[in-house]
């Protein structure tokens, strides 16, 4: 662009104090302004977009973590799924369980209650682990476990609980105390904690101790898209969750997976968490037809029993366990049961051991009554000790299964569920 002051033919591209700006200068300035404005706009827009994205992600993360924490761990002085001692209901969008009860109702009084004996607020569940007493010293945030003596009474009147604990060591003046124990939910239904997702309102509710509240309390514009509970047995097998399990199904559950999905505007966040509900852990591995459990060779097995049989729909039922090694079945035991006169009992009628499969090595009529929770010792069922799945010191066992990756398969099981206890 050439500058010409004299001719005036080419419009001068100059800032002139006398003659104002030419049209071309104005157009060029506007174009430059447009470019700069466009760039600025793009920067601002990108900044706003990323700020909004970050804000949404943070809100989603915060709400998701808080909700998962409340479901799993509870909150301050509150219990969560990890503290379950008994499962009551297990559905996809709702579950109910009994957590340990934290009894904070007692005030130590060295004058009026010299014996430091306190009546428990709720009826204690018979057979549960004994209550734990805790003391919080003045100006301390921590609870310390202290020795207590427990007295259980047979009274089941919720209005007049009569189970009691006595704190054995002197409680320092000004201290707070609490007692943690398993409540009897059949006497105190308010001790059942329930989580429920309402797909209509897209909200999660927690019911406990007579109160129902939404969790989390502040949603920060975040919408709950989904809450789902998935249930597992103690071999990590997914249990059917599209129906409400009966009591035998509930007993199989030892693991719960929680799936949560939240959204805010265009952003979505999904999270999962799994918890082993330790306090409801049953003895042994839960089995049903088709279960496969790793097992050592007979030389290394020191305990091998089966029990906790439930869900027999017929008058008679069979359980067949076969040990597979190097691709071949090597040993099999077949047990035949029939229902006892009392519905809580069964009768083990007969057993049969095959080794290898197809060759019956021993069998016998047992006719032994067993309660459904009782375990039958599979290592002593063959009185001779020759064909059972162990290596007796003083007997020349005839069962030889090579050491290596051996697996026990449940080839037949007429019971809905049973438990196997195997220890090397």
């Amino acid at each position: 662009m050439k500058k010409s002051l004299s001719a005036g033919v080419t419009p001068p591209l100059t800032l002139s104090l006398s003659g104002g700006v030419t049209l071309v200068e104005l157009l060029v300035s506007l174009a430059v302004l447009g470019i700069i404005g466009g760039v600025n706009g793009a920067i601002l827009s990108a900044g706003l977009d990323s700020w909004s994205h970050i804000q949404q992600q943070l809100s989603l993360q915060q709400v998701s973590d808080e909700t998962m924490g409340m479901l799993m761990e509870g909150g301050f002085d509150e219990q969560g799924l990890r503290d379950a001692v008994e499962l009551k209901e297990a559905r996809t969008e709702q579950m109910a369980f009994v957590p340990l009860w934290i009894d904070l109702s007692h005030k130590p009084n060295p004058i009026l209650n010299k014996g430091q004996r306190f009546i428990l607020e709720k009826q204690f569940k018979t057979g549960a682990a004994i209550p734990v007493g805790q003391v919080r010293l003045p100006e301390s945030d921590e609870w310390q476990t202290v020795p207590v003596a427990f007295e259980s009474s047979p009274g089941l009147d919720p209005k007049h609980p009569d189970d009691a604990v006595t704190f054995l060591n002197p409680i320092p003046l000004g201290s707070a105390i609490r007692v943690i124990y398993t409540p009897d939910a059949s006497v105190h239904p308010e001790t059942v904690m329930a989580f429920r997702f309402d797909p209509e309102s897209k909200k999660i509710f927690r019911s406990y101790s007579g109160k129902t509240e939404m969790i989390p309390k502040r949603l920060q514009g975040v919408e709950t898209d989904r809450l789902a509970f998935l249930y597992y047995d103690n071999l990590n097998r997914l249990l059917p969750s599209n129906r409400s399990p009966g009591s035998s199904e509930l007993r199989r559950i030892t693991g719960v997976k929680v799936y949560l999905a939240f959204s805010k505007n265009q952003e979505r966040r999904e999270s999962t968490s799994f918890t082993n509900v330790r306090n409801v852990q049953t003895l042994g591995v839960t089995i049903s037809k088709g279960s496969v459990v790793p097992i050592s060779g007979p030389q290394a097995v020191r305990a091998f029993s089966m029990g906790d049989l439930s869900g027999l729909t017929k008058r008679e039922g069979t359980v067949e366990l076969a040990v597979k090694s190097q691709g071949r079945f090597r040993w099999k035991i077949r047990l035949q049961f029939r229902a006892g006169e009392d519905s809580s009992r069964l009768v083990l009628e007969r057993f049969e051991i095959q080794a290898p499969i197809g060759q019956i090595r021993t069998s016998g009529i047992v006719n032994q009554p067993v309660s459904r929770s009782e375990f039958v010792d599979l290592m002593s069922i063959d009185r001779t000790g020759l064909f059972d799945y162990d290596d007796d010191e003083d007997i020349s066992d005839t069962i030889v299964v090579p050491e290596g990756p051996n697996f026990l398969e449940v080839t037949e099981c007429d019971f809905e569920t049973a438990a196997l206890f195997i220890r090397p």
Partner: protein
Amino acid sequence: MKNGSCRGFTFIEVLITLFILAVAVAPLMQLYATAVEQIGYTDDVSTALDLAREEIEKVKNLALTERQIKQMGNIISPPIRLQKRTWYTVRVVDPDLTPLEVQVYVYREKLNGPPVVQLMTIVNK
């Protein structure tokens, strides 16, 4: 550029100015991109940690002895879709160690490559 009140900017000067502006603005754009990427990474680590913890809880849920868990060997869980990504969880047991050490690796999108997180637990049962 000559200094004078009667002269305007040449076209070259305008272009250079725009170029400088572009150079100055690029790091800003990069900053926003990095911030978004960083949030995405934090989100990924958080998801991977949840999955690793989940796997460790699953090991605890197994009513099996150390020996039985060793016998089950290393396990690759089926891939799971979360936060629009595919995740793989791998459980590795060391058969020679007592008590048993279980390592959990969580991978994003593919199994070959560095894991997003790695956790370890000791199994004693």
